[in-house]
């Protein structure tokens, strides 16, 4: 009897952790499935970036030494950010144990790096001359080398240039480390446009009119930002030169002009006009004249975005009662619905390089997540799973996404890979929204 009671008690005691263990296993299986979906056939290249060495023949100042450390950090950060790469950190514990100050190829290989970046610096006059070398740690072959020389105050640009070269040598793609982002920052009742480097550095104000400025969008060459401003009362379309902050009005219409999107060839602007009483999608030329009205529906149309070839436009519409995504030809024909999953899908953006569209999708719990879908309407994926996430926008290389999120209370800007990995915060001040990513000005 006692044994029976004991066995019964044991069963009860053991069942509870078993159930929770099974639950955990279920979660694990689900995660593996998700990972399999998102990373099929892809392996990030592990890269080590060694500390920059001084190779000059005179003494080095404290400032120069600081610049060298910062250049190393920026290159490491760039490599760590890039979706195809994985930064192998310099293992200080390993070095202390073996009492060494620098690693050779074998050391880097043991740490897991396939590729090694070595940096050298000289300081001729007021300049920084940075040399970079790329090695294959398996074969110890030198893959490539190069150098940049500017005034030392441009050390950050030099570091980004080196990272761009590394990306090009290893992937064949253009680097993104000299690209810019633009976004809206709220200050009291005003909303101003700001511009910054891709990593959030060098932030500066782009507009300063004390009004409400929203919906920024870079021109394809990255030199101008189109936006909607209430500076003259009615929300109208303007553009601002990134280089000098010079603002010009592009178009004025009765009612509202919103959500401008410049076509890939840079000759047309798709936007929302309410001049006919309802929000419809129009295509304007660069002087603000209407080329064509694309939609004719009583519903609210919003957020047009061009396909990379400029032949199609994706947008959101609540014509079924809830916002869903639709694709149409650039002349408004062949309209078809793209999303059926979820009851709220909005703010679509078409990738510049792939057949993916990213957008905001509301979950059943009411949380806004960033999702992506193939242009064929298949392969729906949720990319975020925490906080309220909005305003996604693709990086020009199509491998990264920038978005705003309130996951830590304040609304800040974040970036991630298109698989949802490597999510990192760019801004800390809060009140940041509507980020867009422009190409590097050549």
């Amino acid at each position: 009897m006692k044994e029976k009671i004991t066995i019964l008690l044991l069963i009860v005691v053991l069942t509870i952790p078993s159930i929770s263990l099974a639950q955990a296993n279920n979660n694990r299986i689900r995660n593996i499935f998700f990972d399999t979906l998102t990373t099929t056939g892809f392996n990030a290249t592990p890269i080590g970036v060694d500390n920059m060495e001084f190779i000059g023949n005179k003494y080095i100042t404290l400032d120069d030494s600081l610049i060298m450390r910062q250049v190393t950090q920026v290159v490491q950060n760039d490599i760590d950010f890039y979706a195809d790469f994985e930064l192998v950190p310099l293992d200080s514990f390993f070095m202390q144990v073996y009492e060494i100050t620098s690693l050779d190829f074998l050391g880097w290989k043991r740490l897991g790096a396939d590729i090694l970046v070595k940096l050298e610096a000289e300081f001729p006059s007021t300049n920084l001359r940075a040399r970079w070398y790329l090695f294959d740690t398996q074969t110890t072959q030198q893959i490539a080398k190069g150098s940049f020389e500017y005034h030392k105050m441009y050390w950050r640009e030099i570091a980004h240039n080196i990272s761009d070269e590394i990306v090009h040598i290893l992937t064949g793609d253009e680097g993104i480390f000299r690209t810019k982002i633009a976004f809206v920052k709220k200050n009291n009742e005003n909303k101003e446009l700001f511009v910054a480097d891709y990593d959030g550095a060098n932030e500066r104000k782009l507009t300063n009119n004390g009004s409400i400025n929203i919906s920024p969008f870079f021109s394809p060459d990255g030199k101008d930002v189109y936006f909607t401003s209430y500076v003259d009362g009615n929300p109208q379309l303007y553009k601002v030169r990134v280089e000098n902050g010079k603002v010009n009005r592009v178009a004025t219409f009765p009612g509202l002009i919103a959500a401008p999107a410049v076509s890939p060839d840079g000759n047309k602007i798709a936007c929302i006009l309410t001049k006919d009483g309802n929000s419809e999608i129009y295509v304007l030329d660069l002087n603000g004249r209407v080329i064509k009205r694309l939609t004719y529906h009583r519903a609210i149309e919003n957020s047009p975005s061009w396909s990379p070839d400029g032949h199609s436009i994706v947008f959101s519409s609540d014509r079924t009662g809830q916002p869903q995504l639709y694709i149409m030809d650039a002349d408004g024909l062949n309209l078809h619905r793209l999303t059926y999953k979820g009851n709220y899908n909005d703010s679509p953006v078409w990738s510049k390089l792939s057949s993916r569209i990213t957008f905001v999708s509301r979950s059943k719990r009411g949380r806004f997540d960033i999702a992506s879908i193939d242009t064929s309407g298949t392969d729906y994926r949720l990319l975020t799973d925490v906080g309220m996430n909005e305003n996604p926008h693709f990086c020009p290389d199509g491998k990264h996404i920038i978005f705003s999120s309130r996951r830590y209370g304040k609304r800040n800007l974040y970036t991630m890979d298109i698989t949802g990995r490597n999510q990192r915060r760019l801004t800390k001040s809060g009140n940041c929204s509507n980020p867009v990513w422009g190409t590097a000005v050549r």
Partner: protein
Amino acid sequence: MKRDIVFSLVLHALIICATLWTVPIKWRKEVTYDDIISVQLTAPSEILPTEPVLLESVEIPEPIAEEPPEIPITSPTTLEETTVTEKPKPKPKPKPKKPEQRKKKTTSEPKSSGTSQVENKEIETPGGSGSPFAGATVDNASFNYPYWFTQTFNKIATNWKNPVVYDGTIVCTIYFQVIRSGRIIEMRIEKTSGISEFDESCMRAVSGAAPFPPLPSQFRDEIIGLTLPFKHSPR
């Protein structure tokens, strides 16, 4: 009343008996010890010799000395020179073959013989034989840059959307040529899988992944050709 008291007493007695039966009371806790072994905390004055026990001989492998690279990393310029001098002399470089010539060879000569077998060099694919690209070859044996293959195959694998759901194994072999800038100049199906959708997906994977990493500057030729099998295996 008396009956009730008697009934109550009997019931209590029964409960007490049942309790005593189910929970036997141990008046004294029995403590059992294992065999007691007496030890001395100090060493004995003399240690008696014991017969040696013969253990099975175990072969200890000699430590493989990992020779650090002889190249000093502090002077990359020296390294480049050293690397070049240390590299085994490459075989006479075959001239980049024109697509027409290659076509002739593959159509007229059997694969098991002929000079193309000597020139073609199998590539170590990341993932080994489990890789969908296992068995890939490059038609210029002096092109010995593992990182280039890793990056290129990574791009192609990322770009490949296999549309086929099939229980068997099918292989489609694509041949393509890459020039110095990393762009493709020629691409064709070398061996069809027999399923056009699968073949097309392989072609799209290669063309969509371009441009590839530029050919290394140390490599003297202007072009390389890759023969890449896309293998679909049942999951």
